[in-house]
């Protein structure tokens, strides 16, 4: 279908153009970030942002603007833009865009489950869920009072239900939510990877590279954290590794690793990750290096036409931008100008 560049634009041309348009609207280092970091209050930020694609998004907010408000409004804008694309899409673009939202759905569902586990009112958590991650029977989940009921509801109705079948019922009770999230994330990545490979063509090419990086990122993060804290048994660690990615051949060794030096030795053949781990220092923490790599790959997704890459890249880069705005706003609010430049710039 879309491997045929001739007919691609018939169905998806409009959306792809939208995606490229949104890419052009992303905040840049030269024009936007350099001015934003010099603002003295969030009000100044609002002033500057009104000249960008964000426009008057903060216009109706009461006077002292907090970082939380900025994030909330920016997320709303992201959801609007995403839905613009989503509602006008046809297959297979709809499924692809749905896949992007599954990640948020996983998080939302886990939040509700945690709320029930700790006997909190699920309705409170509802407004904290990410808007991109709702599905039609989401509100029904709130009504369920025990984990088991939720489990049944999820299996039946939700699009992400099949990620849960691969885990046991027991997992819900025993493991921490972090572990569950990593497990579900692994299932999701594998599923997405299979789907994308099925799509074939340019999309498969570009998205596979992106997803492999996501998988490797998960593997490295989990390994690194579990050698630091040391309370995750090794077989459970292995369960969380997605079954693909550049580091797939050293998964077994990584599962057995006991400290950071060992990890570095194991990944030596994979130059990119080896360099990344070597560059970790107090000034550039591990997360920043990972984010930079992620952003680089996302930008690369825009390079080719007639594929679904730009949609994925748009969502991820916007999220990163919102995160940057949050960081800058917090630094300005708390007057910590020394660390304000730790955001990850995109362009």
């Amino acid at each position, binding site marked *: 279908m879309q491997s045929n560049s001739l007919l691609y634009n018939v169905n998806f041309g409009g959306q792809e153009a939208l995606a490229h348009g949104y890419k052009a609207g992303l905040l840049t280092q030269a024009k936007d970030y350099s001015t934003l970091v010099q603002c003295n209050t969030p009000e100044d930020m609002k002033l500057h942002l009104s000249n960008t694609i964000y426009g008057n998004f903060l216009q109706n907010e009461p006077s002292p603007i907090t970082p939380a408000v900025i994030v909330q409004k920016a997320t709303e804008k992201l959801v609007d833009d995403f839905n613009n694309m989503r509602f006008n899409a046809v297959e297979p673009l709809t499924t692809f865009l749905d896949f992007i939202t599954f990640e948020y759905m996983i*998080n939302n569902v886990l939040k509700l489950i945690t709320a029930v586990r700790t006997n909190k009112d699920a309705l409170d958590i509802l407004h904290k869920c990410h808007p991109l991650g709702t599905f039609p029977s989401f509100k029904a989940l709130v009504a369920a009072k025990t984990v088991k009921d939720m489990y049944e509801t999820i299996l039946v109705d939700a699009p992400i239900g099949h990620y849960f079948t691969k885990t046991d019922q027991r997992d819900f009770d025993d493991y921490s939510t972090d572990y569950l999230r*990593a497990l579900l994330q692994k299932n999701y990545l594998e599923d997405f990877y299979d789907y994308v490979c099925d799509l074939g063509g340019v999309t498969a090419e570009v998205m596979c590279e992106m997803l492999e990086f996501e998988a490797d990122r998960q593997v490295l*993060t989990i390994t690194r954290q579990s050698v630091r*804290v040391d309370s*995750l048994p090794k077989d459970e660690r292995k369960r969380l590794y997605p079954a693909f990615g550049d580091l797939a051949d050293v998964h077994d060794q990584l599962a057995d690793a006991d400290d950071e030096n060992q990890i570095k030795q194991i990944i030596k053949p994979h130059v990119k990750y080896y360099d990344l781990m070597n560059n970790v220092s107090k000034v550039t923490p591990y*997360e920043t290096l990972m984010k930079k790599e992620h952003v680089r790959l996302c930008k690369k997704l825009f390079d080719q036409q007639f594929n679904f890459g730009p949609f994925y890249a748009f969502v991820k880069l916007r*999220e990163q931008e919102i995160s940057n705005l*949050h960081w800058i706003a*917090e630094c300005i609010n708390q007057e910590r100008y020394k*660390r304000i430049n730790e955001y990850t710039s995109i362009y």
Partner: protein
Amino acid sequence: MSDKNKRENVLPSKMTLMQMKQRLVGAKKGHSLLEQKAKALNNRFRQILGEIREAKLTLPDLFNETQFSLAAAHFYGEDISLTVSDRQKSDPVKVKLAFNNIAGVTLPEWSESDEFSEKSKLPLLSKGSEEVQTCVDKHLETLQKLIKIASLQTSFLTLDEEIKVTNRRVNALERVVIPRIENTIAYIKSELEEQEREDFFRLKKVRDMKDREADEKKQALIAKVGAEKAKEIENEILRQKMETEAGRVSSNQDEDEDPDADLF
């Protein structure tokens, strides 16, 4: 008021004097002990004040850093609400209570329970776990500082009360009780002296009267029987007196026997 209480109303006698003296000794001893206690309490008070001041000075910076570490955790972790709500399952942090004793005053002292360090070691598998860990550590550190300050402040207040009470007691002893007792003692002493003087004077008067009576009798006798015969009778009376004296010493006779009774 102080005029009436200048001294107690007691019967001035030797026994009450002894009692008063004992009371004075007790009051003075109590006063010196209480002064020592007040000194010890004051020392500790000043020490606590210094510690509170130091701790409170570091608090604003600590709060700022903690708040900022939260912002950093949000940034690097992207969505940490899951991790946070997961941790709400485990028990809140516990605190132990111990009692210290300073110069007889029990002061409460809070310290963190042993689970403290374990709280921060739960595994985190999501993005930005390092920064979240730093955030947790910073919050625990702030909590420890707050526990310490709370415990110091309660000690401070308790000590303050205690010092006030002790000072009141010391002053009461010094200004009221001891002067009262001293005045009472002075009064008793003066009364006793006066009684002694009265006794002495009375004795003198009686002796004078007796001497005069004896003289008059003597003159009457001389007028009756002549000077020499009077002298003989006198010696006879003296001799008899000495015999009865010896007899009295050896047999403890009744003192009221008047040796002159069979003469007249």
